[in-house]
């Protein structure tokens, strides 16, 4: 538990540091936690023992993933006044783009799978 938490926080810390360096050096705006996730994935591939150490703690965090966006969600209440007339536009954008993206993504996957002869077995 202690070592798994330490490893997760260390990956995040390295990711945040790397994000600042990339932002300053190359102007690349990648979020630190995403870089930390890629680092964590690399470490898991390198060592099965490391993966076994991380697994229960990572599963514990992910099992309650939804809880983590409650504080930010409550914050939107302060925004409701400023949204006003834009609310309908935003809802249309969310629903319309979700339909288009699911359709486009699924068709692309199916077509490319047929062309390349990829199957799951």
């Amino acid at each position, binding site marked *: 538990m202690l070592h798994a938490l330490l490893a997760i926080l260390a990956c995040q810390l390295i990711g945040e540091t790397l994000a600042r360096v990339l932002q300053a050096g190359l102007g690349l705006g990648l979020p630190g936690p995403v870089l930390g996730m890629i680092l964590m994935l690399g470490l*898991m591939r390198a060592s099965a023992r490391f993966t076994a150490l991380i697994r229960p703690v990572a599963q514990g965090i992910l099992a309650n993933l939804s809880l983590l966006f409650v504080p*930010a969600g409550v914050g939107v209440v302060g925004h409701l006044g400023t949204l006003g007339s834009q609310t309908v536009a935003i809802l249309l954008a969310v*629903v319309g783009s979700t339909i288009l993206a699911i359709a486009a993504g699924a068709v692309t996957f199916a077509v490319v799978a047929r062309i390349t002869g990829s199957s799951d077995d």
Partner: protein
Amino acid sequence: MTDFAEIWSYLSQGPLMWLTATLAAYAIGDACFRAAGKSPLANPVLIAVVLLAGLLHLTATPYAVYFEGAQFVHFLLGPATIALALPLFDVLPRLRRSLLPALAALIVGSATAAVSALAIAYALGVRGEVLASLAPKSATAPVAIGISQGIGGSPTLTAVLVILTGITGAIIATPLLNLMGLRDWRARGFAVGVTSHGIGTARAFQVNPTAGAFAGMGMALNAIATAVIAPLALSLFQ
């Protein structure tokens, strides 16, 4: 009654009360979600947000005071993003067998989600911070919030848009893909995961295990892809 007022004024100043309230509201939301047969309409986060917003309103508590307690939960978004490496690691062997279709669907799905959302909102007159908040909404919440902060959006608005996108995808995916006659469970699940992150993935697991595994894959990969695609898509509209 003065005792109660004293206790209230003591507790309402510290982080303990609002941290407890956040967990309690989510526990109630989760209980409603289970009671509703895990229907995507009874989203536990939305229920918790509505309960807490009502409570803050009734007690005239400013958001800043609430956040002093809630920040401990909010902070875990970062470690949770690191933890997403685990489901990605677990599907790597299957991802390798479907690498080309997955990469193509990732780029097309992620770009369609960001560009079409921005185009619709822009056409309807949305600009500035609100428009920027829309760009990363298909990524999983911790990542979307981080990206939103980086591109001039509002993290709190993005959090709600992420949840709405997830619920929308979870509700429409099955009827939409049936209508289109798509039978490849990998394609169906992957597209739902890319577009509707964890909420869509949870729904996909209810429909079909293969769809669920590929939805998880799509969600994890889009956490990375959105970091690159959302700022690019937004730059088209600025």
